[in-house]
């Protein structure tokens, strides 16, 4: 409402004009509202309804919305370990993405010179093949008989019976690999905007390069850090491809459980409840995070 009030011109004007302006504003909102309605509000309600299905429903017999709130209790009780594991894996992957991505984005923004565009294209290049195919190829690379494991075993960095595939290492590495571009691009965008003279100015004002990074570059790149970590953490927490292809059943993430409940068991109620719980946890974490990072304007 406030937006409409301020968009009306101040002071006395002809009475017809503000009304027409207001209407124009609403018409302009329409495509966005429709988009949100079709692709967010309706699916969200559908998911919410699913989480309240009668747990006795079945694919063949149908499902009724009986507001069975115990679905949530059951979902948390049955999947607490998986939820914790998902957040832990996604958090670690986000941290690794940040460490790798910051160095990469920094190098591209400040040191790459004429290679900059080429490097950016290379960062995006993995998107030209499908997520699934890329993850499958990691399965080949990390295979027990593959050259990575063989090399590490030859160097005695791994025992003969150790493996990479079907371990948390492989799953977290897969998540890190797959979501790295989502970290690099916002980081690059915010680093690239930093006026190089600010860093010179910090050096001129007695800040060593390390201090200058902490006092100037890092705080100015924070919007990119926040955007990048959110873009990495949120999809990573709900991902199931990496855990299912690179992990064993002991590395299952919440995405795998939801997928399994939906497509194998047909237990829509539990699947819906678990999805809503995941959504709530992520929104909660994001709010806390963004508040702490001091970039409320992103929310």
């Amino acid at each position, binding site marked *: 409402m406030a937006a409409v009030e301020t968009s009306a011109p101040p002071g006395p004007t002809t009475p017809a004009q503000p009304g027409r302006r207001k209407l124009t504003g609403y018409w302009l909102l329409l495509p966005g509202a429709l988009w949100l309605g079709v692709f967010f509000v309706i699916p969200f309600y559908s998911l919410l309804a699913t989480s309240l299905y009668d747990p006795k429903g079945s694919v063949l017999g149908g499902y009724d919305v009986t507001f069975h709130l115990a679905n949530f209790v059951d979902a948390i009780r049955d999947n607490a370990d998986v939820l914790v594991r998902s957040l832990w894996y996604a958090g670690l992957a986000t941290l690794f993405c940040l460490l790798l991505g910051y160095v990469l984005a920094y190098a591209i923004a400040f040191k790459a010179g004429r290679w900059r565009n080429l490097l950016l294209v290379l960062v995006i290049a993995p998107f030209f093949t499908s997520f699934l195919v890329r993850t499958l190829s990691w399965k080949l690379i990390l295979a027990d008989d593959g050259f990575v494991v063989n090399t590490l075993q030859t160097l005695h960095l791994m025992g003969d019976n150790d493996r990479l595939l079907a371990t948390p290492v492989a799953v977290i590495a897969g998540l890190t690999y797959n979501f790295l571009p989502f970290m690099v691009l916002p980081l690059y965008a915010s680093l690239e905007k930093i006026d190089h003279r600010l860093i010179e100015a910090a050096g001129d004002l007695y800040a060593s390069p390390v201090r200058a990074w902490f006092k100037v570059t890092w705080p100015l790149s924070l919007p990119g850090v926040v955007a990048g970590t959110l873009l990495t953490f949120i999809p990573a927490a709900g991902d199931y491809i990496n855990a299912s292809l690179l992990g*064993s059943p002991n590395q299952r993430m919440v995405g795998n459980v939801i997928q399994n409940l939906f497509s194998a068991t047909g237990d829509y109620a539990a699947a819906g409840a678990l999805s809503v719980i995941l959504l709530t946890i992520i929104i909660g974490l994001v709010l806390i995070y963004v508040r702490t990072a001091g970039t409320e304007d992103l929310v």
Partner: protein
Amino acid sequence: MPGDSRIGRRTILKGAAGAVFGLGSVAVLPVFGQGGKKQDPAQCRADDESARDKRLVISNWPEYLDEDDGKNLSTLHLFEKKTGIKVSYTDDVNDNIEFFGKVKNQLGSCQSSKRDMFMLTDWMAARMIQVGWIQELDKTKVPNLHANLIDSLAHVGWDPNREYSAPWQSGLTGIAYNKKKVKEVRTFEELLTRPDLRGRISLLTEMRDTMGLIMLIDGTDPSRFTQAQWDKALERLRKARHDGQVRAFTGNEYIQDLAAGNVVACEAWSGDVANAGNDDLVFVPPEEGMMIWADNMLIPNLATHTANAERWIDYYYDPEVAAKLADYNQYICPVKGAQQAMEKIDPDNVDNELIFPTEKTLSVTHSFMALSEDQIRSYEGDFADVTGG
């Protein structure tokens, strides 16, 4: 200040709007319920365009159909040559439940699945027939089926007179291992517990195969078991999973992990190992016993080439064609007379127990109990809790 009362009014208005919105939301949620998926195959059928449109669209499991071999045409190409029907054949069935997920929305609401035929395992075939998604076969158009189907498969409980289904191949579930990497695995119990196999075995996502074999460890009969026996078997599985013994629960793709060396031993289907063409891979019947099953040709509702599909069934029930097929995929052949026909095609396979099992072999095979809808949900749920979560 005059603002105070305004703020008070605003708060109340906001609260009221929130309450209305919340109640409205709750009221609208039941709209998102889902109806049942039962259909009546008599109502939900399409006109047969077979005569006019000489095509046939089939979905089957991978590695399940012979291929052209030098100058010998595959059975599929011979069928096309003989009938003039163009077959679109896709191997997109990897797992019964996964495939069920692919077609349930269409078939459950009387829409076309865009297929004229697919092959599914007994229990899934039973379930689909039960909810009316499958068209009845015209008996007069499949004479070979009724003449040549082997006796053991002719009268199953869920389709006593084979009015809706025709077995494509039958098979056994047992163990496969890589003899170069690991010493012989003789029992299913070894598979689940042997320390040298830790993290290097895979099991199948087919609940009936996996749980059946585990029940056999305890001597439980998978066709007649109690809840306590089920629970005991489930506990064995849970322990194996938590100990990290199991690397993956898979569909048909297990054979790739086995060939790649990521998995050294696994639960396997009899024909796959022979088909893999790798001499290091061995199929073993576990000492506890094996599971037996069949995949069935089914014609779904709204299929538009019913008569062509029936010609296909009748064609594959010709003993010579059946022998050629079995020679390729090494599964149990459901067609009488194929063993004699095999003598001409590949004498080595005439006495292959995996294709033509003797009575003695069949005596150690088991099938899984028929389950009610409630039992399906309960057992599938239990199983998924262990394999998926």
